[in-house]
């Protein structure tokens, strides 16, 4: 092999990659083994070229062996994920930027004037603990019936709620810009119809009444002896609605039971009785019943009866 006609390989040491673009198979290789052999020899040359540069790097000796520093790879390969996007500033950050407010690091230990000691800022036995205030002095603006301690707790709850809302808003804007922090996930708890705001479901009067009725009757005595609230209506009659006609006819009045039976008979025996009876429906019902009875005796699915086994009363006719 002439050294002058040495092929130039494209070597990317960072990836341990080598590419020989000038190789051409001289002729159709005669057999598979020859082809394989030639490929392996070409490969060896390439690996040797990479190793030449690699072993000439300055190496540091470690317990496992010589360590070299690889240069960054030169072949560009596509990324697997997008580049991290810059986070949009939060509402507070924008405000602080505008006003020129600098961040100040807070100390963990703060001097407490009431006890003349250094106490921690957060945690057990902290400075300015809300629970520790023994007396709150009344101001001229206070109402007489108001509990100032409860009011303080309430105020704190409101502040915390507001802060949570703001935090959610900030995260939403960050998610819109595609820069949600990796450990946070925004989950929809209820899915609204796209384009509309989900309206809270309004319950109708009837439905409310039903529910109230259910609640009222769910006591031990069925709600009979409970005090009724002002405006509450008596419960609707539950269960089956029976109308029983009187056995003995009213004094000089009509025998209602007789009337009822006469009515039915009249309809059946009249000239136009066939119009009353829905013949089609009757036929369908009869046919269905017949088919059900038939299919019930599906021979394939039922276990075959053993004829050889004799049963007592075998001679009795089946239904």
């Amino acid at each position, binding site marked *: 092999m002439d050294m002058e006609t040495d092929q130039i390989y494209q070597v990317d040491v960072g990836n341990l990659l080598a590419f020989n673009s000038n190789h051409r198979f001289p002729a159709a290789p005669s057999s598979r083994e020859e082809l394989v052999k030639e490929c392996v020899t070409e490969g060896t040359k390439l690996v040797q070229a990479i190793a030449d540069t690699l072993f000439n790097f300055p190496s540091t000796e470690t317990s496992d062996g010589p360590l070299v520093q690889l240069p960054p790879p030169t072949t560009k390969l596509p990324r697997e994920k997008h580049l*991290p996007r810059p986070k949009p500033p939060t509402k507070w950050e924008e405000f602080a930027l505008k006003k020129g407010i600098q961040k100040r690091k807070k100390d963990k230990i703060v001097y407490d004037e009431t006890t003349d000691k250094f106490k921690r800022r957060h945690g057990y036995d902290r400075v300015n603990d809300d629970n520790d205030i023994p007396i709150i002095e009344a101001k001229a603006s206070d109402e007489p019936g108001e509990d100032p301690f409860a009011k303080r707790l309430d105020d704190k709850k409101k502040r915390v709620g507001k802060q949570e809302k703001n935090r959610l808003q900030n995260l939403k804007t960050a998610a819109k810009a595609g820069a949600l922090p990796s450990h946070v996930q925004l989950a*929809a708890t209820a899915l609204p119809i796209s384009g509309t705001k989900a309206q809270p479901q309004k319950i109708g009067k009837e439905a409310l009444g039903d529910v109230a009725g259910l609640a009222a009757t769910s006591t031990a005595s069925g709600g009979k002896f409970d005090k009724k609230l002002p405006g509450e209506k008596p419960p609707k009659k539950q269960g089956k609605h029976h109308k029983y006609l009187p056995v003995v006819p009213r004094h000089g009045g009509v025998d209602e039971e007789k009337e009822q039976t006469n009515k039915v008979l009249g309809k059946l025996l009249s000239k136009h009785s066939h119009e009353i009876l829905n013949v089609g429906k009757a036929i369908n019902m009869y046919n269905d019943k017949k088919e059900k009875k038939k299919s019930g005796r599906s021979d394939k699915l039922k276990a075959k009866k053993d004829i050889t086994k004799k049963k007592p009363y075998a001679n009795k006719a089946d239904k």
Partner: protein
Amino acid sequence: MMEIRTPKTHKAKRVLEKRAPKLVENGKKTLILHGTKTSATVSSVLMELYRLKKGGAIKYSRRNENIRPFESGGETSLEFFSLKTDCSIFVYGSHTKKRPDNLVLGRMYDHHVYDLIEVGIENFKSLLSFSYDKKIAPHEGSKPFICFTGEGFDNVPELKQLKEVLTDLFRGEVVENLNLTGLDRAYICTAISPTKVFLTHCAIKLKKSGTIVPRIELVEVGPSMDLVIRRNRLPNEGLRKEAMRSSKDKPKKKVKNVDQNDVLGKLGRVYIPEQEVGKIPLADKSKGVKRERREGKLKKNKEEGSASKKLKESE
């Protein structure tokens, strides 16, 4: 109504941070799965590929009937798997009458299909059929050499894409420091025709030569196969540009406070920061740590020891 969900354990948080998009990315993981029908060749190819890429690959064993990489709707399952396993390269093997012994190599960008290339496998030789001295067998997870031979890889666009995909597939992690004793495998890809590539996996034997650079000898150990190009799909230009975009390289970190002096040698400057009384960490007042308690315990042990000795002596 939106709700903020944060991980409740440190482990979960670390996993989420590992999977987040970063400036310098982790090595790409490979997802190996097969389709409705696979022949013996395809299943052994997938199995051996998995073994070669043990540390950074996930192999699914069930068949996936609804994955059709080249059809528009057939990628949703793949993208879902990619999202769940955090894999950006996939190898999908199948076998049909029209496309026997088929392998689809694909890559993902942001868990959506970036590009695909379909190859057919011919003349497959499994790694079990190669006999060699077991001492030179390559170790699992070692960084391989990758070699491409043939002008086809420059001229034919499909082969160019195949070259890129194979580099991505075999590369593994990008490392800064490399241990030279751990170099024991090489992948050789030769373009034997504009549509066929011969791929084989060899172990490296380092032989003594006169110089620092040892003489390399390759021994075929692993699977070898012929890849016949069938279909491919290139990424669209905009997506490709976005995926190839990389931020400016980080400027090399200056080593501060170090001086070189001819007389004294290497000099360093040590700064003692101002002592901030407000920020001193409080003492560890936990029960077992207090000195009185420690000393008390020591005393007690000593007494017990001497008491037992006394007992022994008296006996």
